[in-house]
């Protein structure tokens, strides 16, 4: 008996029971579609988050006050024994030769207004190196000048979106805005950069770090960004920064994050999330498998005489097993194919509706869902097929009389 004959027999049996076949196909299709869509969402989340970090620049070190190695929690969330200071940032500039740019950051949210228009936006106190560390470009005017860190001029660079909303067609450069109680002159507008790790660079204000610290009444920094000259030296530079600050603070009390570590950490977490989502989809696929088994058991029961006849005309047990098993596999494979098509279509639609969310089904999920759907057919078709193959031909033929 050839595989084509088996397929023909299985195909005609499935076509004959259109409603039952359709519902079984639907069950498997929904299962596979769930796996595809859910893993796409998980993968999309992973890509989105890692993309956000990567957009900061892959040579970037982020120095955060506090050390949380033992607890394994997110750095910066616990207490900081010693604050990061402007002097720390200056020491890094002086003593770390691998540092290309060092940008201290102080940060708060404040009311920024121009005339009657204003709203709360993040205000970041930093230096000219911030432009290098965050890969920024100017749309007009100039960035913060390269001056001593303790010189706090009342000047600001604004994000493009904020500039558009505040100035409504007027040229922003040279205008004076209010930031809290401060009157600040706008010297430049950043080119569009978008959201990066929760901070919308299009919707913020940058001021000199000394201005920011006075404005927020702070003596310590939020963090220090260090752009490393050579990517290969990243780990060495990181260790140098840790050692330097440990010397200055008399203890190792900072955490230095590399982009790779952050990206890898988030990527791992989100990979687990994706797999969990695949598991949830897999459950619906298993339910579909039970549906197939049910359908096949009913089918075997209804076609008892057919099995008896097959045996009477000389079919061997393994041939009958093959016919029913192929029927179940065909059902699950077709369902899997339909589910895959619908899943990919849904992901495509998702991409069109939410263009910023990079939803995409990972290849392993596609392969896995197809593999599992076929396996589901084989596994759940095995019991009914085995039952059919073991039917006593006399009983099977007598039952149809």
């Amino acid at each position, binding site marked *: *008996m*050839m595989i*084509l*004959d088996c397929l023909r*027999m299985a195909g*005609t*049996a499935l*076509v*004959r029971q259109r409603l039952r076949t359709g519902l079984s196909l639907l069950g498997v299709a929904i299962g596979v579609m769930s796996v595809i869509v859910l893993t796409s969402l998980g993968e999309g989340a992973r890509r989105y988050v890692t993309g956000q970090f990567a957009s900061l620049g892959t040579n970037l070190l982020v120095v955060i006050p506090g050390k949380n190695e033992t607890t394994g929690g997110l750095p910066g969330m616990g207490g900081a024994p010693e604050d990061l200071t402007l002097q720390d940032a200056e020491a890094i500039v002086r003593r770390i030769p691998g540092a290309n740019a060092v940008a201290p950051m102080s940060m708060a949210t404040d009311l920024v207004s121009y005339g009657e228009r204003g709203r709360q936006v993040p205000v970041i106190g930093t230096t000219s190196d911030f432009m290098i560390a965050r890969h920024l470009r100017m749309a007009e005017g100039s960035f913060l000048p390269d001056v001593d860190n303790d010189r706090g001029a009342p000047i600001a660079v604004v994000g493009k979106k904020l500039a558009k909303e505040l100035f409504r067609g007027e040229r922003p450069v040279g205008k004076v805005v209010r930031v809290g109680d401060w009157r600040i002159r706008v010297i430049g507008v950043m080119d569009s950069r978008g959201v990066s790790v929760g901070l919308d660079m299009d919707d913020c204000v940058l001021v000199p770090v000394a201005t920011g610290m006075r404005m927020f009444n702070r003596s310590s920094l939020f963090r220090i960004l260090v752009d490393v000259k050579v990517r290969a030296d990243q780990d060495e530079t990181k260790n140098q920064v840790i050692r330097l600050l440990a010397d200055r603070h008399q203890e190792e009390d900072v955490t230095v994050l590399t982009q790779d570590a952050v990206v890898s950490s988030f990527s791992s977490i989100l990979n687990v999330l994706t797999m969990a989502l695949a598991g949830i989809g897999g459950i619906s696929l298993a339910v579909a498998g039970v549906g197939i088994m049910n359908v096949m058991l009913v089918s075997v029961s209804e076609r008892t*005489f*057919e099995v*008896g*006849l*097959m*045996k*009477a*005309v*000389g*079919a*061997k*047990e393994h*041939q009958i097993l093959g016919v029913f098993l192929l029927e179940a596999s065909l059902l699950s494979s077709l369902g899997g194919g339909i589910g895959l098509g619908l899943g990919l279509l849904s992901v495509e639609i998702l991409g069109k509706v939410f263009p910023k969310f990079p939803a995409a089904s990972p290849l392993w999920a596609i392969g896995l869902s197809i593999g599992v759907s076929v396996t589901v057919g084989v596994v759940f078709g095995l019991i009914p097929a085995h039952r059919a193959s073991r039917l006593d*031909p*006399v009983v099977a*033929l*007598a039952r*149809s*009389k």
Partner: protein
Amino acid sequence: MILLDHLCRDYLVGGQTLRALADVSETIEAGEHVAIMGPSGSGKSTLLNLLGCLDRPTNGRYVLDGQEVSGLSTHELSMVRRHKIGFVFQSYHLISRLTATGNVELPMVFAGIPRSERLKRVAETLDWVGLSARAHHRPDQLSGGERQRVAIARSISMKPRLLLADEPTGNLDSAAGAQILEILETMNRDGLTVITVTHDPGVGQRAQRVLVLADGEVVRRVPGREIVEAYADFNREQQASAGSSS
């Protein structure tokens, strides 16, 4: 061709052994046309199942074409059925979703015969039973007689040596029944051994000889031409026996 030697078949029903066939010894020559008759429960179907290698005897020997088949494995019995035996059933047993061609083709599919060869044989057999024009009709598009002719075409598609017909005219009107019997007789004349199970003495008289079963035993062996009278006597005796026992 067929040797039945003290053949018995017992069934275990509700913890008790029920003897369905008791000590049947018979020889059927190749090319014979034999009918098996008897009242319901006499063991006709049991004997037919054993002859068709669908079942195994509890005791005794069954030799088919010189091969002892009573001790064969399930797999080996399948091969015997495939190559040596054709079945015709009272209710045709055609697969409703398949066309006449598909149904006739079925035994050859399991035998692994290439499709081109199968279609050639299907065309020949359907032509032989006069159904060439109905090759692509499904069973529900055929009359009873036509369905039984498709079943006959299927039974001979593997060119068997033995044809077992279980009430082949039981569901047919007299004209269609006569046509089926004519076909069976023609096949028998061509050398096929035909064994027919029937309740109808009219069918039995077309056989060369008739075995009459009662309570699992062969109680009479009658030439086909004498079965009408002999079976009437047998029925009278049965009724008398039933009357006296009650």
